[in-house]
């Protein structure tokens, strides 16, 4: 699904962010991206949804070179990728509902369906009761959860999450990753950057480790819940949803 072939990216002033990174994340895989601050995690994700272009090497999605995509096709690529940005990037002038429901709206989905979709997505992160708030009225953690809901609403083929739980308490963080696992179970490829070893060891999956732009680790980890974790989740969907509602 996602293929990096010898990808390098250098920002101005010779600041190397990625250095000959090569890996492949298969369809339906669940990947963690980790590494110290400034290792290049965000940069790697940005290359996938083409917020940035690699200096050398190729980024392939479903075998197609993202860098060679004409500009007019980029929105359609991005629609298939849900992104949770590290800095949330919510639109302050729009309500939570409008933020989350923007893409369905562009896709021509009617108001009632949009509301249902937004409600479902927000309930998964426990914020269904804040649909009419504006982002500046939310706590940072709440903002982050809205960003997560926005990434989920479109049932994307690929879900990229950049430190989605940096401002969430451990319990909520776990719930967010449970949701990610659920979505992953429906076939969505997930790549989540995180600093939390606890989450990685708990959930397991493919673990990519970056350090100063180099891919220094790539392993498959069995989570604390064992390979049957998914079933565990399926058994208790109510627990995930419980926080929702007004």
């Amino acid at each position: 699904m996602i293929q990096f072939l010898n990808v390098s990216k250098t920002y101005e002033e010779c600041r190397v962010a990625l250095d000959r990174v090569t890996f492949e994340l298969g369809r339906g895989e669940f990947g963690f991206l980790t590494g110290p601050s400034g290792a290049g995690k965000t940069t790697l994700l940005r290359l996938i949804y083409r917020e940035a272009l690699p200096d050398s090497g190729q980024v392939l999605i479903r075998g197609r070179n993202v860098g060679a995509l004409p500009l007019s096709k980029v929105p359609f690529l991005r629609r298939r990728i849900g992104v949770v940005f590290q800095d949330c990037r919510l639109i302050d002038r729009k309500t939570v509902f409008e933020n989350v429901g923007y893409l369905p709206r562009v896709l021509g989905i009617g108001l009632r369906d949009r509301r249902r979709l937004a409600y479902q997505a927000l309930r998964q992160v426990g914020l269904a009761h804040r649909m009419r708030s504006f982002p500046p009225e939310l706590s940072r953690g709440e903002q982050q959860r809205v960003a997560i809901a926005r990434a989920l609403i479109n049932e994307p083929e690929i879900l990229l999450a950049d430190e989605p739980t940096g401002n969430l308490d451990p319990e909520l963080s776990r719930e967010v990753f449970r949701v990610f696992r659920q979505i992953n179970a429906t076939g969505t490829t997930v790549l989540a950057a995180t600093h939390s070893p606890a989450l990685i060891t708990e959930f397991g999956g493919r673990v990519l480790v970056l350090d100063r732009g180099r891919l220094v680790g790539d392993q498959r980890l069995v989570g604390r819940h064992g390979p049957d974790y998914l079933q565990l989740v399926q058994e208790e969907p109510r627990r995930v949803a419980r926080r929702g509602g007004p």
Partner: protein
Amino acid sequence: MSLLRILLFFVREAYVNLRRSWRVSLLAVFTITTSLFVGGLFLLLSENLARLLEEWRSQAKVIVYLSAPPSADQRNDLLQKLERASWVEGVREVSAERAQQRFAEIFPSLADLTLEWSEAPLPESLEVSLAPASSGDDGLPAWLAELRRHPAVELVDDDRDWLRQLELLVGVFRGVGLTLGALLLAAATLTIASVIRLTAYLYRDEIAVLRLIGATEFYIRGPFYAEGLVQGATGGLAALAGLYAAYRLIRPQSDAALLGTVLVGDFLPMAQLLFLLVLGAAAGLLGAILSVRREAGVL
């Protein structure tokens, strides 16, 4: 989505955005209003000035002085000749007494003198007013020459030198007026564009986010275009209202002064009001177009 739904989307988005950031919008609208008001005021003045000059121009006359005692036949022949000519709009007879009287009016200080004159020294004359369109007619000089040879005519004062000067004046006035007006409107448009470009800076991050979550340019730009259009049209309307208010304000006071009527004789015609409105809307739209276009290097 159907075209109607897309348009509805644009309009609704624009409406929500305008409502939520009305302070910024107000600043933009205000600038547009100011610019268009000033431009419109200039248009109003120059229109009235042009109208006045046109009036003067249409009043240019050919004066035919009759030989001292014209016979009745000669007189009638001359009058018929005048009335046959296509460029003649009207003929007014001025008797010798009337001529003297007018002389006294023009030179009040010399009025006493005329009383001393033994017999009327000023001859009877015919004031021939020409159709405004005729001044450029090539047949006119020949016709005037013929008129001069007529036995009843002592002298033809055709006012044409003066007319030509006046035409030059009108031309210069109009030219200067148009140039200045165009300059003002260009300045207004540029000001508006730069204001809207400035507001766009405010929404730069917003636009970037929309791009990142997969909205096409069409959907991103539509609402901004609608917003710019509405702002521009609102500014235009406000300017028109302001102009009308100014017109009503100046007019009553201006009746006293000679110049007042010159400056604001009539309000702008419908076409020009519409022009100002469209200009405002266009400026708003242009500004919006300028403001949401992709910056170089944006992916």
